[in-house]
Each structure stands twice: as structure tokens, then as C-alpha cells.
């Protein structure tokens, strides 16, 4: 059969299976139907629910402005799909083209799309997680439980980790007038995503809203009372926080364990794929019938030195799912690359934080407009003499302009005279990202070097 004939048959009566029934999976399914795929479509999801939207969970849902169970995503079009919800995929046989499910069934495919995303990184001490009052926030059910507990009026809420989710939860708790302690291992909130200069602004937001923010500390243990209820948390600086609620916000970990041994290039850092969303196998050869999209994917981006980026962004899930779906049912010459410029938003303490590009690649930061002290500014990140990212605090309208600078590899520092440029924005400063090769907390000994003669032991003292 000719390649064209195969493709035509695939589009008409092929079997497409999507593992992962959240934002990326749903958008891919819709795109397939919109582009004329009339074959059988199966969506497999480990949660019991129809695809729902996660960003509201840490914002309006915790504030009581929307219900956790009312976050289902709207549909563009009728899907006519088979839904296998509440049953996880547990294995993949690439040569037989079959997905194994937790209930023992197997589903055959002609083309497979993997959109299994990420889950909340668990607390490292399982017995402490069992304590009543210890939560994580990733799913609808997580949020419903946390919401009920917040509504009951706890004495204090301890948020462990001041990334975006942790900061948004702290913000919602303060808005509900609950006492909040935030424990962050790094030097400031959001420091990994936006660097320490912007992180310091985030720290003032926390403190001005009454958060007891503690940076440079780790929570070393959670202690319960005899009835199994959380009583207090122990911190690495020797202090103790009396609290009856702890929310663990340690970032996310990728859902790839089910692919172990499948031969697909999947691991803790995600599933590597090409710019056209085709997955690599462990040999580094690109597959023809397995595609990846969303948080679990890791794909090379031409704008950022062809680095393999994995982006846990809402917009990336949508854009990559659409590209993957298109490519799954297109001939090689008609396939499109995923060239989306990374972008995300967060709202916390009444401030709208948005970003484009890849801030952690930035070496320097220039406050091009506004002022850090006013918490209304546009920060531009530079890397090797070009604009690589931008962040705005309540200055969304300028962001698109900076996105074009990123896309056109404009020089850094920008040569133009902007409106509203202040003295602090005349010279770039170090963006202040933590060195990824250094531990963020506590003294550590590391060994480096390969041959026995140049092995070296380095002692890194504690930062704080």
C-alpha cells in the first residue's frame, strides 16, 4: 500500500488512543476530529473525571468563588470518543501496538498520543503524609479536601515550598484571613522560575500580606498528636511551627513510570520527542506512531539553542496537543513544528504575574519599565547578548512586545529608550538564578572528576 493510501485509511478508520485525559488529551482529541479524523478515538485517564481545568484549583476554588467539581473544560465540538476514565495505563507494547490498563484490559492503536502529564511531588516521608491535615494540591479531589479544611478555620496553614502553586495557596489563605507560614528552601519565593531579583519582590508581597515567610529553611519533619492529627512541623533552623494544616508544594514529577521497559525514551525528566511531537525510543530513534504532548513531553526548541524543554504550562499543553494531533494524521511533508514561545501566568496577592520566554536561561535582568519597589514592572532577561525572556508584574499589556523581541533574537540589553524607564532600569543586574549544580540548602560534600588522578572533593558550606 502506498504511504498516501495508508494515511487515508488511518484518517478514515484508524484507531487513535490518547493516554492522559486532561487539557492536552482533550485538545488533541478535538483537533483530530476538527481535522477530519473519523476513525475510533479512545481517551484513557486515571482520574474518574472528564477533563477539567487545573489553574482555577489554586485560585478561585480555594477562595470559594468556584467549586472544585465545576471546573470541567468546555468543548469545542462533539468528540464521539470512547472514554476509559478512572483506569490508569500500566504498560505499553510498542511492537504489538497495545496499551495495557490497570484493570487488565489491553487497547490496540494505530497511532498513540501520550499526555500523561505530571503529579505533585510527594513528601519524602510516607508515614507523615498519613497525618490528618497534610495535603498536596494537583487534582480536583485534592482541592476539594483542602477547601473543606480551610473552610473549617484551621489555627494556621503551613505551605511547604514557595513556587507558583505554594505562593498562590498562601495568597488564598491570607485572603481568607488564615494565619500562614511559608517555608522555602531557596533564598526567596519563585527563585527557581524567575531568579532572586524578582524573587525578592515576591517575598515583599508575601510579607506585606501577613505571611510568615521563612526562606533558606527546610521542613525536616511533620509531627502528629496521638490521634494522628498534624500538630507541628520541625524546621532545619531548629525552630518549630505549630500548625494543623500543611500543604506540600514541592513541584511536580512526570508520569512516565508506566512506560518503564517499553523501549520508549521516557524517564524522570519526561518523554523526549522531536519538534513534531514524535517520541524517541531508548535508542534515540524517532518513532512513527507514538506522539507526546503537554507537561510530560520534552522537545527541542530552535529559539532556545535547540534545548529540550519540558514546560508545565497551560498554553504549552494546548499548543503542543494541537501540533501533535495534526502531525498524527498528516504526511511527513505536511507536518508542523511545535514552536510555541513559552508563556505562563500566576495571580497572587492581587498581582498578575506573567512571563514569556525561558527566564531561567537568563544571566542578567533589566527592569525596562516600571519599578520593582512599586511591584509594577517589566523585567527583561538576557542571555549571551540577546533577549531570552520577560516577566511582568501588573504590566501584561507590554508582554507581547517583548515576545517579539525574543522571537527575533533582539540584542540585550535592549537598545531602545522605553517609556517609563527608571534609574534602576538603566543597567542590567545579575538575574540571580540558583546554580543548579549547587545544593540549595545545608552543607554538602560533592565529588567531581572522572579519572582517579583528578577526582576532587569539594565542601560547600550552608548558604544561610
Amino acid at each position, binding site marked *: 500500500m502506498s504511504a498516501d493510501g495508508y494515511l487515508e485509511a488511518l484518517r478514515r478508520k484508524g484507531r487513535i488512543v490518547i493516554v492522559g485525559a486532561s487539557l492536552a488529551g482533550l485538545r488533541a482529541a478535538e483537533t483530530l476530529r476538527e481535522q477530519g479524523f473519523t476513525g475510533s478515538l479512545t481517551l484513557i485517564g486515571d482520574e474518574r473525571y472528564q477533563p477539567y481545568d487545573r489553574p482555577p484549583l489554586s485560585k478561585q476554588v480555594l477562595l470559594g468563588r468556584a467549586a472544585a467539581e465545576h471546573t470541567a473544560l*468546555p*468543548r469545542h465540538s462533539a468528540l464521539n470518543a470512547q*472514554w476509559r476514565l478512572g483506569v490508569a495505563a500500566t504498560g505499553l507494547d510498542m511492537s504489538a501496538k497495545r496499551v495495557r490498563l490497570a484493570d487488565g484490559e489491553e487497547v490496540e492503536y494505530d497511532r498513540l498520543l501520550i499526555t500523561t502529564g505530571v503529579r505533585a511531588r510527594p513528601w519524602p516521608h510516607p508515614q507523615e503524609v498519613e497525618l490528618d491535615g497534610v495535603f498536596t494540591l494537583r487534582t480536583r479531589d485534592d482541592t476539594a479536601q483542602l477547601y473543606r479544611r480551610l473552610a473549617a478555620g484551621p489555627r494556621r496553614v503551613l505551605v511547604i515550598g514557595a513556587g507558583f502553586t505554594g505562593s498562590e495557596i498562601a495568597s488564598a489563605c491570607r485572603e481568607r484571613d488564615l494565619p500562614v507560614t511559608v517555608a522555602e528552601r531557596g533564598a526567596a519565593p519563585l527563585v527557581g522560575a524567575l531568579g532572586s531579583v524578582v524573587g525578592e519582590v515576591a517575598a515583599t508581597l508575601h510579607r506585606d500580606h501577613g505571611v510568615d515567610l521563612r526562606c533558606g529553611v527546610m521542613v525536616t519533619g511533620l509531627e502528629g498528636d496521638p490521634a494522628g492529627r498534624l500538630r507541628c512541623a520541625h524546621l532545619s533552623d531548629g525552630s518549630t511551627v505549630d500548625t494543623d494544616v500543611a500543604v506540600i508544594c514541592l513541584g511536580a514529577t512526570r508520569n512516565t513510570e508506566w512506560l518503564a521497559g517499553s523501549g520508549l525514551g521516557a524517564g524522570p525528566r519526561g518523554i523526549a520527542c522531536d519538534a513534531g511531537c514524535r517520541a524517541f525510543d531508548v535508542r534515540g530513534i524517532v518513532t512513527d506512531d507514538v506522539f507526546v504532548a503537554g507537561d510530560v513531553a520534552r522537545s527541542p526548541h530552535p529559539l532556545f539553542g535547540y534545548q529540550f524543554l519540558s514546560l508545565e504550562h497551560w498554553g504549552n499543553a494546548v499548543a503542543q496537543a494541537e501540533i501533535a494531533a495534526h502531525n498524527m494524521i498528516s504526511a511527513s511533508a505536511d507536518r508542523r513544528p511545535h514552536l510555541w514561545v513559552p508563556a505562563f501566568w500566576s495571580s497572587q496577592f492581587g498581582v*498578575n504575574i506573567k512571563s514569556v520566554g525561558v527566564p531561567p536561561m537568563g544571566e542578567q535582568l533589566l527592569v525596562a519599565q516600571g519599578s520593582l519597589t512599586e511591584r509594577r514592572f517589566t523585567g527583561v532577561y538576557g542571555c549571551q547578548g540577546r533577549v531570552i525572556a520577560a516577566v511582568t508584574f*501588573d504590566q501584561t*499589556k507590554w508582554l507581547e512586545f517583548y515576545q517579539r523581541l525574543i522571537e527575533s533574537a533582539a540584542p540585550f540589553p535592549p537598545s531602545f529608550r522605553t517609556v517609563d524607564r527608571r534609574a534602576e532600569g538603566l543597567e542590567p543586574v545579575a538575574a540571580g538564578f540558583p546554580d543548579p549544580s549547587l545544593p540549595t540548602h545545608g552543607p554538602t560534600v560533592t565529588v567531581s572528576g572522572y579519572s582517579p588522578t583528578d577526582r576532587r572533593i569539594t565542601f560547600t558550606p550552608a548558604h544561610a
Partner: protein
Amino acid sequence: MRLVVDLNRCQGYAQCAFLAPDVFTMHGDEALLYDPHADDTQREQVRRAATACPVQAILVEDQDAAPASAKGARDVR
């Protein structure tokens, strides 16, 4: 009625908060909070808000595309 706002697109023009204040509210100067499952009595206001949005960031579910109420785990929708 299900809806979602692409907050990457949203630039805080607040037209929706004027046209459908029971569904969309500004939180601070720029951040938008919305009810992802607005009451059906708000359909006309939400439609107006979606139309008026200068950056077309509001996606409202087409009534025909809405899946029926929850059924078993193996249904076709």
C-alpha cells in the same frame, strides 16, 4: 455552562467584568477570576462578554458539544 479563559491572552481589559459581573471579576488591577461553570441564566451576558473581549480569550462551550450528564466509565461522547 462551561467556560475557560486563556489567561495567556487575557490582558486585563475588564470588558467581561463589566458585561457579566456575576461570572468575571477583577482581582487587583489586572488579574481575572472567573467561574468556570457559570449559571445558565448568565448565558446571554457571558456570550456578550466573550464577543466583547478585545483579545478573544474567552471560550464558551457550544451547547451542542456539551457532553450529557455523567454516565459510566465506558461511554461514548
